[in-house]
């Protein structure tokens, strides 16, 4: 018995030693630096950092000073800083500790049917928020519910929000974020202060991109930056993602225009010029092989259409009427593609129209 106990204690001691040594081991391997996407890394931390959206920032800053907010509706194309702005504003209002329990963020990855609006949103909005922080300093006496990507909410779910929004103004502010303001039902839109986020200007984009290049030690030539501006169309997130992807692909090499174009899936100019040339030759068979080649090379039809539009609009040997006919067809094809129609057939229809217009129009 005694021996047993002794043995037990010895084992215990050994175990203790072991745990001590293992805990010592644990400290050694330095924590791996988590790779953060640059989009997250360079997300503005405060409202002041938000690029280019001057009016919105001015209004928000005013309301932050008197620590009150109206219900907000942000809309605009992707990558213009809508989500970043409201997150930054909330952080300014509440500080990092209170941020967690004062902000409810719901986006399209959460279930947002009518039942969720009735239960989760309503319950959260009914809680009263105190006007002081745990340390006694004053803070705004309300919570924020961010409904991101609100245009993918069903209209019954939006309708269920109406009364909740009004009734709970004392304790809750809503911020709706969407790409298309037309998909938000009128009664909701009229309860919010609307802000349009515009696509970022080229100067702003360039400034930001160069700033990131400098901080991340990436070299990117002027043509590369220009290609980024062209492909991103005022979408800062897209530009940054492309830049990061390119920098990963080309480790410690200069990023060139061709890299960006390949990542963005841009159809090379020569390919499109060839196709237009074929169109003016009035040969169906040549067009057929040309288009099959294009599709086999994996270029996406929507990209072809976008670039074709830019090309044709500047083409001088077409009359206005011809252009009008072609662009009408272009619009139809675009719609059909979004509906999921076959790429080959749609492009064929578009290019035969162009062929007809060039040769017989």
């Amino acid at each position, binding site marked *: 018995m005694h021996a047993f106990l002794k043995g037990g204690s010895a084992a215990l001691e050994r175990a203790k030693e072991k745990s001590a040594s293992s805990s010592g081991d644990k400290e050694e391997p330095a924590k791996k630096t988590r790779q953060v996407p640059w989009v997250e890394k360079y997300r503005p931390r405060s409202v002041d950092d938000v690029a280019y959206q001057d009016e919105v920032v001015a209004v928000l800053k005013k309301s932050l000073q008197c620590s009150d907010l109206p219900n907000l509706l942000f809309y605009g194309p992707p990558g213009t800083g809508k989500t970043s702005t409201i997150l930054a504003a909330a952080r300014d209002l509440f500080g990092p500790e209170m941020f967690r329990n004062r902000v409810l963020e719901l986006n399209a990855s959460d279930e947002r049917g009518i039942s969720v609006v009735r239960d989760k949103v309503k319950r959260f909005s009914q809680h009263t928020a105190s006007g002081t922080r745990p340390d006694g300093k004053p803070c705004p006496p309300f919570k924020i519910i961010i409904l991101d*990507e609100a245009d993918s909410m069903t209209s019954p779910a939006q309708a269920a929000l109406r009364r909740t929004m009004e009734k709970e103004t004392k304790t809750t502010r809503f911020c709706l974020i969407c790409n298309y303001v037309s998909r938000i039902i009128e009664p909701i839109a009229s309860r919010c202060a609307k802000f349009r986020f515009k696509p970022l200007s080229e100067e702003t984009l360039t400034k930001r991109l160069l700033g990131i290049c400098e901080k991340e030690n990436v070299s990117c030539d002027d043509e590369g930056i220009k290609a980024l501006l062209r492909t991103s169309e005022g979408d800062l997130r*897209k530009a940054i993602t492309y830049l990061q992807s390119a920098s990963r*692909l080309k480790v410690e090499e200069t990023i060139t225009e061709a890299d960006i174009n390949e990542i963005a*899936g841009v159809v090379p100019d020569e390919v499109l010029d060839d196709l237009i040339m074929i169109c003016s030759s009035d040969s169906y068979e040549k067009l057929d092989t040309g288009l099959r080649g294009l599709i*086999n*090379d*994996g270029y996406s*039809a929507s990209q072809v259409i976008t670039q074709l539009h830019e090309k044709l609009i500047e083409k001088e040997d077409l009359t206005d009427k011809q252009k009008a006919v072609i662009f009408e067809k272009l619009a139809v094809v675009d719609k059909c593609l979004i509906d*999921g129609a076959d790429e080959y057939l749609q492009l064929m*229809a578009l290019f035969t129209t162009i062929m007809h217009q060039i040769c017989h129009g």
Partner: protein
Amino acid sequence: MSLWVDKHRPNSLNKLDFHKEQAAHLKKLVNSGDFPHLIVYGPSGVGKKTRIMCLLRELYGSGVEKLRIEQHNFTTPSKKKMDISTISSNYHIEVNPSDVGNNDRVVIQELIKTVAQTNQLETSSQKSFKVVILTEVDRLSVDAQHALRRTMEKYMATCRLILCCNSTSKVIPAIRSRCLGVRVAAPSIEQIGQILQSVCKKEGLSLPLELATKIAKKSNRNLRRALLMCEACRVQQYPFRPDQEVTEPDWELYLKETANLIVEQQSPKRLLEVRARLYELITHCIPADVIMRGLLQELVKNCDGELKLEVVQSAAYYEHRLQTGQKAIYHLEAFVAKFMAIYKRFFEEGIADLF
């Protein structure tokens, strides 16, 4: 014994047969220890999946090849039950959300988010992230794609997505802007020829260059198809002869015959016959858009200039309606009827002009 297609599938980035430069880029990407979300796109049968598996192998080692199939159950908000099967290893999970049709959003919301939210326990010995492969993203509903958006950003630390699709047209821009696009172009005819020859060499067979080129041309730059055809030729006859017939799938021949029937005669009676043949094709699981494309290709051969334009336009028109509509046969038949009308009118006008 497995098919040549599977047997000779390259399993590392170094062994890929074409787009070597791209493979080198991908390798560099993986060797830096981390990569962004990827969207791999290109026509079918060019080795998108092969490339992805090579990438994973490079990343995690041979552990990714120990696959298991799992069944997952979900309940939709409307209390409908459904299951989806996933293929997974310790490091990755592969799902085809479009299997469950309209409810794919739930899969994204439940499954992907659960995977994405789980942290890897031991980050010192393995990568800190898992990989989720989503196939046929172009068939995801718009709702499901929206659901992906924020998930992709929020759980970047624990999870990388690799999306695989035929065309990026149907992927919403918001997703495209979050991914690094990897375009996999179809191999050229010569490349296919070379690959066929090297595969045959590995099998201990000799393939004449003429036959290889012939198969490559018939395959429409689709490598998988080329390999299958090549194997079919082997079964048919060996040793190979340079002038050997390359058998086409019988449904293609059937489709060609159908097209010829349409051109031969334009009458309601013929339309009925054609309908029976179209039904035959559909019941054999030939996708309706493939039928439409095949029909167009054959029919156009019998038309001249002006007429071609009109036929192509109507094919595009009916194919679009086919995608938005419910039953394929209506639209296929409508196209056939339309073609008959156009063709007949053209001929009658031609005859009237003669007199």
